[in-house]
């Protein structure tokens, strides 16, 4: 029917690319196949999520009632530090990379990443980074100065356990892994697209991950530099962050120059996933492709100019604060464009409420709440009141869970059939959805109020002030719902792999090329591929009389 083309042979000889049916452990460890590496990233993310989530639940138990003695302050401080660090660097990053390296080649009609060996290297760097970080538990105490690890509390005089040395080394390794992945992604997207797929015809997921990769290249080096300096301080008595007259602030500048872009690094790929999911389950193409695509570029550029909004309380003067207030507010506009374009995509569609779509829809509301509390912080006088309170904790989780994590869940339900050839149960999935969403809102909505009432973050306990105990108890109880929900998800994955319904190659009536490959895709990914004329090659194939016009 259409002008089918054979996919080109891989340009580089790929060692060990013999996926046979018995994939032994050794085969997994030595593989350079992007699909296996993608799956391993996801497994790493799930394992660390269990650990990071367990830490969160322990913290919530400690905070359930005032003046609690369940955890010692030292333990609590290690737990929240490791919770934040784990979730950001070893859950969200690997999850995002997992989907990226698995699906980029499939969505652009390639059969591998540009540098397969580098791909494996990145995975193992991430893995060893996590290993080194967690080794600190055995070596005399985990890091305990918070995920952003402010100086001079992170220095030897104030934190004598070796935890922070492991923090430096672990994040440095993982950081190198992230940089190499980003390079790999950019080169793949630039050089391995199928014939006809110009950069303006990229599927939005690929586009977001592509933009994101530049963000990684720009942001991670400043973290790496800061970590190197800190390690020199701690190991060789250098004086970067102990210096009188601003050393402490130097760390904050370097860290947030990385840290702020980092939080967008964790959201842009999720935006990509939502963009695919909204299209497919509304049966429509995206509304305002170029606006959605370009607003990501705007977010990426702006994100390098807002770092001092984490430092409004350091006393830097009205002019500086005004500048960073304005730049932070500006980010609300491109993000708003995305939200409204997704709504417009659904408008007039034929909406199927699969679990994947439900997470995407829930995201619209939850992320708007989280984004607006971000705007509250960008209003400097409000930040002066709200910074470092539970209002910030609420913001973090509304954007990370309601934004990034829901995106990962949405992507998991959407792509699981491609990964395994089996469908996750929609019925159990709805249970999972409602348990998680209710637990999530119960845990974190109330934290806005706690923050307004004056509860600072990072406290291992609090006095019995009016309402504090009650609100914290609700928060803790709801957190358990999320735990239960996640165990349900694990069981669902297990049982789907055992006896889930076979999905076929295209269970959702998809639009992009990955749905042309078998489920799971074979060794070379594709047997045949169409020449691409538009952003939705599969739609064109299915509706030749109503094909997209660009």
């Amino acid at each position, binding site marked *: 029917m259409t002008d089918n083309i054979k996919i080109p042979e891989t340009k580089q000889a790929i060692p060990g690319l013999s996926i046979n049916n018995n994939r032994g452990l050794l085969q997994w460890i030595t593989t350079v196949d992007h699909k296996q590496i993608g799956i391993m990233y996801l497994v790493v993310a799930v394992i660390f999520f269990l650990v990071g989530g367990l830490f969160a639940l322990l913290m919530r138990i400690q905070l359930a009632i005032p003046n609690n003695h369940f955890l010692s302050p030292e333990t609590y401080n290690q737990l929240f530090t490791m919770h934040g660090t784990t979730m950001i660097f070893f859950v969200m990053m690997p999850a995002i990379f997992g989907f990226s390296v698995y699906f980029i080649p499939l969505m652009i009609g390639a059969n591998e990443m540009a540098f397969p060996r580098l791909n494996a290297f990145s995975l193992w760097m991430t893995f060893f980074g996590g290993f080194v970080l967690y080794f600190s538990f055995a070596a005399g105490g985990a890091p305990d100065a918070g995920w952003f690890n402010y100086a001079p509390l992170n220095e030897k005089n104030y934190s004598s356990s070796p935890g922070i040395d492991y923090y430096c080394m672990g994040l440095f390794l993982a950081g190198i892994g992230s940089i190499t992945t980003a390079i790999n992604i950019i080169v793949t997207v630039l050089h391995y697209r199928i014939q006809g797929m110009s950069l303006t015809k990229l599927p939005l997921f690929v586009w977001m991950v592509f933009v994101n990769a530049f963000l990684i290249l720009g942001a991670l080096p400043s973290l790496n530099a800061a970590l190197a300096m800190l390690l020199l301080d701690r190991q060789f008595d250098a004086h*970067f962050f102990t210096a009188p007259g601003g050393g402490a602030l130097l760390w904050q500048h370097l860290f947030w120059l990385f840290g702020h872009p980092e939080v967008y690094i964790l959201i842009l790929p999720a935006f990509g996933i939502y963009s695919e999911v909204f299209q497919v389950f509304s049966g429509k193409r995206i509304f305002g492709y170029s606006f959605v695509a370009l607003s990501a570029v705007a977010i990426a550029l702006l994100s390098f100019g807002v770092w001092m909004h984490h430092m409004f309380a350091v006393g830097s003067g009205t002019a500086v604060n005004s500048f960073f207030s304005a730049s932070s507010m500006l980010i609300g506009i491109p993000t708003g464009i995305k939200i409204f374009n997704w709504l417009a995509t659904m408008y007039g569609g034929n909406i199927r409420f699969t679990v994947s779509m439900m997470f995407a829809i829930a995201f619209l509301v939850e992320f708007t709440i989280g984004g607006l509390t971000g705007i509250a912080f960008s209003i400097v006088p409000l930040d002066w009141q709200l910074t470092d309170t539970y209002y910030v904790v609420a913001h973090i989780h509304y954007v990370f869970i309601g934004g990034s994590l829901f995106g990962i869940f949405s992507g998991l339900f959407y792509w699981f059939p491609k990964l395994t050839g089996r469908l996750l149960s929609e019925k159990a999935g709805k249970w999972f959805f409602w348990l998680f969403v209710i637990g999530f809102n119960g845990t974190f909505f109330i934290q806005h109020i706690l923050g307004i009432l004056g509860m600072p973050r990072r406290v291992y306990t609090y006095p019995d002030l009016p309402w504090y105990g009650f609100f914290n108890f609700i928060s803790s109880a709801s957190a358990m719902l999320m735990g239960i929900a996640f165990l349900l998800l694990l069981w669902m994955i297990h049982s789907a792999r055992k006896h889930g319904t076979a999905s076929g190659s295209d269970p959702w009536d998809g639009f992009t090329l990955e749905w042309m490959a078998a489920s799971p895709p074979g060794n070379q990914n594709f047997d045949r591929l169409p020449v691409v004329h538009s952003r939705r090659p599969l739609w064109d194939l299915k509706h030749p009389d109503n094909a997209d016009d660009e």
Partner: protein
Amino acid sequence: MENKTMIKLVIGTEGIFFLALIMAFVYMAFVSGYEPANLHALNIKLTAVFSCTLFASSGTFWMAEKNYNNSNRKGLLTWLCVTMLLGLIFLGGQAHEYIGLINKEITLSSSLFGTSFFTLTGFHGLHVLIGLIVFGILLVLILLGDFDRPGSSVIACAGMYWHFVDIVWLVVFTVVYVLPVIHVLK
């Protein structure tokens, strides 16, 4: 093609890494007033000479690359060796400078200047060293006959990296040696 894109990205991200270090140096050495004593501890003229060897090595590598593209293996080998020699001289100069400073009791832990000076120049030196190791590997591969014919992008990529390391030194030299002179003279 892929390799060249990759090396450009590496250079971009490394550039930002050095930017962070240079910012730290400026922050530590200048914000609270530059200490003229630090300037006297440095031997700017000698370092300028060693810097020239590094800058020259960019030129010699360019020659090596040209010879490679003309399938002149011998030319390639010679110019590559000259490049490595110049790089080594630069590192030797740096080692000499370090020893001198340490004898004057300026070390990583002695002062803010020491901290930021050794970190910045040290990381640059590390990159020179990495370049030399890459050249070493290339040398072996050339001798094994892997680069008899033009067409591989590897030499060009190594060259881009090397030029980048040079340019970084240009900036570092300006910030660490030249600017303070102007600053103190004023």
